[in-house]
């Protein structure tokens, strides 16, 4: 048995003291040790982006990060986007513009888009398209994801 590390993950403002092997990915730790299953795993090799979460303000693929690397950092997942019953503008925009079908890639897209727009609220349409091409969706053909993220960008800029 490999050695274990005792770490604390901070997810959506709550601390999760967990014991993991050093090789444990952040994605697995979030889902299994911390029970937050809204973050999905689509490829485990950093291509599809379904597992995207925000770590210290940056969208990251949680399958490419070890849990131990995220210890002490502020992790945000899809479960933390809404404020109680009030959904985040990005969540509302995805529903309004039909930016999801099966919903499997959706948490990753939401976290990617929120992370980027918080950092760059005035991102150009062209740069936004580049960012959104980081993640894969097999249902929507991206049309309505792009529409939804642009609409949410506007909503997030409003005071």
């Amino acid at each position, binding site marked *: 048995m490999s050695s274990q590390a005792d770490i604390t993950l901070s997810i959506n403002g709550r601390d999760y003291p967990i014991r993991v092997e050093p090789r444990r990915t952040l994605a697995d730790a979030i889902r299994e040790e911390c029970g937050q299953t809204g973050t999905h795993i689509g490829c485990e090799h950093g291509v599809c982006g379904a597992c995207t979460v925000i770590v210290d303000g940056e969208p990251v693929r949680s399958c490419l990060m070890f849990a131990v690397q995220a210890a002490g950092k502020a992790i945000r*997942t899809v479960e933390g986007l809404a404020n109680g019953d009030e959904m985040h503008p990005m969540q509302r925009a995805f529903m309004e513009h*039909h930016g999801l079908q099966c919903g499997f890639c*959706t948490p990753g897209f939401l976290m990617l888009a929120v992370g980027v727009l918080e950092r760059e609220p005035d991102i150009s349409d062209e740069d936004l*398209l580049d960012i959104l091409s980081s993640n894969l969706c097999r*249902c929507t053909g991206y049309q309505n994801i792009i529409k939804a993220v642009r609409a949410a960008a506007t909503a997030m800029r409003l005071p």
Partner: protein
Amino acid sequence: MTAHTKGSGTTWVGRSIRRLEDPALVTGRGRFTADLTATHWVRFVRSAVAAGRIETITAPPGTSIITAADLKALKPIRPMLHKFNYVPVGQPILADGVVRFTGEPIAAVFAAAKDEAEDLSDQVEVDITETAALVDGRDALADGAPLVHSEAAGNVIVEGEITTPGFGDVWKSAHHVIRVDARSYRQNATPMEARAGHAVYDAATGRVTLTCTTQMPHLTRTAIADIIGMPEHDLRVVAPDVGGGFGQKMSLAPEYVLLVWLARRLRSSVAWTEDRRENLIAAFHSRDQHVELEGAFDKNAKLIALSADIVANIGAYSCFPTTCGVEPLMALAELPGPYDVQAYHCRSRGVLTHTCPMAPYRGVSRPVITFVLERLMDKAAAAFGIEPTEIRRRNLIDSFPYTSATGLVFDDGTYQQTMEMAIKAIDLASFRRRQNQARDRGRYLGIGFATFSERTGYGSPAFAARGMEITPGWETVNLTIDPSGFVEARIGSSPHGQGLRTTLAQIIADEIGIDPQHIKIVHGDTDRAPYGWGTFASRSLVICGGASLLAARKMRAKLLRIASHLLEASLGDIQLKAGSAQVIGTDRAIPIAALARAAYHQTHIFKGDIEPGLSETGSYDPPGTFSNACHVAVVDVDVETGRVAVEKFLVAEDAGLIINPMIADGQVHGGVAQGIGNALLEEIIYDETGNILTSTLADFLPPTAREIPPIELHHIETLTGNSITKAKGLGEGGAIGAPAAVINALNDALSPFGVSIDEMPATPQRIRAALRDSGKAP
């Protein structure tokens, strides 16, 4: 009957209401199979070679391992077809003595943790004596080729042939014969959620609940019960949220059988989550076909005869329930497409090879045959010196019902009209000017059209015509209003992204006067839903929607009778609206919830006139209906690198009455994106030994937002008599037309070089090879 006044707000049908599925999915509260935990985690040991004899399987001491030797009591997966010289072959749940494709499960290892099982599986040594592997369908037909299954001589597992009477004479009268030798390479549907299963044994009842990522829960239950030899009522199959399927999840996975068997043996819970590599190599593949097509035209460019020879590489086993006949036989029946041609010859064979089994994938065969037929039409147009649209104008069917050379009956459609609509919207004349100007500057733009039909919502006779032992077709809906007034529709379909909870609720809402928000659609649980076939083949809105409408009409009739008693008004004077039964033109009304309470708790009022309770069932088995569309792609080809950029994509389609325009558009968008990926990017590549070279998403390339252009949609709504909701299916059309439009477009762009790219995907390598061979390119 409620008037369908689209967009007026007087009916729910026709309105883009928000999806009822979405709140859970955008907040991380969706429930997918891999979210469940288990006592035991399973990892499959898979064959590293394509063909060979298993000599020994050695695991580290103490490893919990299951091999074929433990499964002697299980039957193989052995779907049946009673026509077309089909040779039934069995697929063992775990490879038994021989392996037939890279990735075939050989053993199952289980442990208390997922990574522990994975570590153990890596330490299992399988000694295999390799034998010659067949990878290509045509090679498998060669004299002396090794046999994948000894019972299938010449490796042909299914063969259909049609020659219409008088075919030879028509052929001889041809003015011009055009030929296409086309290849569609192997692809993988690649749902974003790979497969996963979780089986838990209940010691109190002896039952097992299998939760898995399936498109057809009931048939999964029947199949596994048959294979294991257990009573079907001891198995419950649940499809929770399913992360896309596109056909890959409608065929039975042997892995699920193993999970149920193991849960019963251990009297515990077991789970398996497929990783992406397993999905790419060992879930199902599709689209691997050679098609040789010849078209005979008269002097006016009218197609008078078609002749085809199709070889579909179906892999190592036949998928359950459709059988591997699904691709070659659909090609046989539907190849003539939307064109008026009555002389037809076709031979279509399904051929066994040492590759991953083939199964349905969005469009099933039609993306391939449409691509080949549309290449033929474009090549013919060039030979006659006319626009590709002009040759289609002369050949598209335009009078209905139209009976095809293979006996298919096309209901009302708009083949010509959608094309004219597309030509106008894309402004073909101005594109040609822009194309010429660009060429002068050394830039190669092209436009491609695809006109096609999409056979949807077909009932059991269509499957029976194929000789299938299992003939899906009908659906049943059980609609219940409980004593508290809550409405629940239990359905046999099993949606996984299509928004059916919303669209069915819209259909039911219009009948019973209750807001769709208050209608709960229950699906994907064999304990709660009536037996049904699931969601595939663009069938659910037509068939399950029809069954929903029939059940809702019965419910409406009963509610009106109850209201008539309680309001002391005649039936014709009552309307159901906004949650109430109202006497028209008065202020007398009673909430539907009160009618429901009376139906259960106050039945003495009805003096035996009305049966107690509120539960109505509708079943629907329709004749089938054809949607149609014209797709247009505009591309920019870089002749130095072979890169194709799709600038614009336009769809003019007719899928009958649109229940929810927002959802319908989303289905077309997604299909088109898959079609663009199929046309340009996605390919499962085997080397000559049968090893897969494309086992990650960095090698097998679904398109990203960068590769998909803006998609412009136009609709015509032809109301068909072949569907009681007037809706036709449209789940597959996007994927059917897009490859043909894109490949025609890139060939149009490259017309100055005299090349014809008749392969899909048309990768940069293939385009560059063709340009180099032309001797005219840089």
